[in-house]
């Protein structure tokens, strides 16, 4: 499968934080959920992909071209957390500007999305609500027919209805199997609905990068009491967490676990469980 984005051994050092050999691939026609707690390195990775941060080691390829040597931005749509056009501008102004920035800016599509999302054309960004502003950022990222969307927290601040509308647009976007999305979000339920791949980063390191199917079919969460927990071999689970009344165990191969310990039900893994157990859990 052809990759639209390749990140290989990305390293970037700051005084108090470092990205350590971050690697993952995003194939064509796929959506990758990029998860991790605040400060884990998601935004820094995205900034490196977009050449916002310089002086990093490793290689980043978009459309098979090294981003350090080629400007590949014309086919990328971007939504960044709290970074956008100055707030004295209106959606109408943005259309005027972007029509000169992108050769393939689609004015009709832009105004169609504005209409679909009920966004005012002549109001300044300053006067829009947080949710409306976010929608405008998404619409702006989509209106030049990009092949790759890079979205940092695109659904934060949106109500459930708007989130569902946006997710539908993302689904439509990858329908022709030529376009892909890298989507960083704290709202893990959104990712469970649309992501094909999950890349989980913590403390500057990629802990896992797998297909959602792999994660959901193989991984699971076992809940048991203290006595049962004591009988379980520590090599058969990745992490455990002690709750008020029970133990929660993250297992990498739930079928094997079921057979070995004769357990009937193992809870389906959610991304929230995965994050909490990996970050907070013990071994």
């Amino acid at each position: 499968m052809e990759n639209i984005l390749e990140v290989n051994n990305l390293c970037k050092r700051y005084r108090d934080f470092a990205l350590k050999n971050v690697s993952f691939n995003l194939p064509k026609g796929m959506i990758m959920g990029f998860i991790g707690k605040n400060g884990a390195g998601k935004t820094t990775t995205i900034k490196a992909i977009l050449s916002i941060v310089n002086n990093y080691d490793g290689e980043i390829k978009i459309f098979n071209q090294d981003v350090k040597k080629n400007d590949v931005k014309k086919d990328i749509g971007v939504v960044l957390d709290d970074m956008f056009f100055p707030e004295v501008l209106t959606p109408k102004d943005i259309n005027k500007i972007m029509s000169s920035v992108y050769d393939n800016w689609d004015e009709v599509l832009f105004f169609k999305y504005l209409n679909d999302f009920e966004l005012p054309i002549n109001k300044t960004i300053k006067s829009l609500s947080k949710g409306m502003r976010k929608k405008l950022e998404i619409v702006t990222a989509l209106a030049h027919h990009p092949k790759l969307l890079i979205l940092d927290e695109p659904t934060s601040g949106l109500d459930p209805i708007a989130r569902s509308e946006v997710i539908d647009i993302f689904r439509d976007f990858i329908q022709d199997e030529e376009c892909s999305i890298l989507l960083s979000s704290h709202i893990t339920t959104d990712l469970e609905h649309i992501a094909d791949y999950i890349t989980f980063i913590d403390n500057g390191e990629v802990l896992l990068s797998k297909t959602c199917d792999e994660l959901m079919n193989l991984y699971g969460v076992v809940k048991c009491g203290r006595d049962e927990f004591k009988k379980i071999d520590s090599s058969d689970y990745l992490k455990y967490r002690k709750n008020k009344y029970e133990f929660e165990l993250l297992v990498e191969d739930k079928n094997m676990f079921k057979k070995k310990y004769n357990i009937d039900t193992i809870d389906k893994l959610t991304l929230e469980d995965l994050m909490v157990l990996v970050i907070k859990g013990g071994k």
Partner: protein
Amino acid sequence: MIGFIKKDLLMIKNNLKAFTFVFIIYVFMAFNGMMDISFLLSFISVMLVLSTFNYDNYNKWEVYAITLPDGKKNVVKSKYLTTLLLVVMTSLISVLITFLVMLINKQVNYEGILQVFVANVTSIIIIEVFMYPFIFKLGIEKARIWIFVVLLALALILGILSNFISLEFLTGVLNFIVNYYFIVPPIIIIMLYLSYLMSKYFYLKKEF
């Protein structure tokens, strides 16, 4: 790049209302011989461009711009060009108003008008030449403080130098500039280009 210039001009247009009132008052004062409008208009244009830096900084436009095609190249270039465009436009307006005032007073002096134009453009561009590298290096908030510190230091140095330089020498320099004002633009263009290179260097080196 045209898109980035459009962005600044649209921001200025949206902010223009606040300056319209001031403009009308000063036009009125100029026609009544109460003050010279020529410098003020250029000054307003610089204020308008500086306000675009404020909004850019507040909404992190200089970071978002990098995600657009040729964004990194165009952020600095477009800012210099927008300022030039605006300074020339407002200076032309001020020349027109000066001309009308002279016409009404029946004292038209074409060389005087040209001197007003060159002096306006030059003085504002000098501000641009010195301020913009600071802004691109430090950001508009910190740059304001540093510009103030540098101006203070310059005033101090000039104050000290004035003890050693005669008034005749200074008058001579000023007379030379007034008489040979046509050599000022090439010097300014070179300074502007050097300032642009510095700003570009600082911006490209910046870590966001």
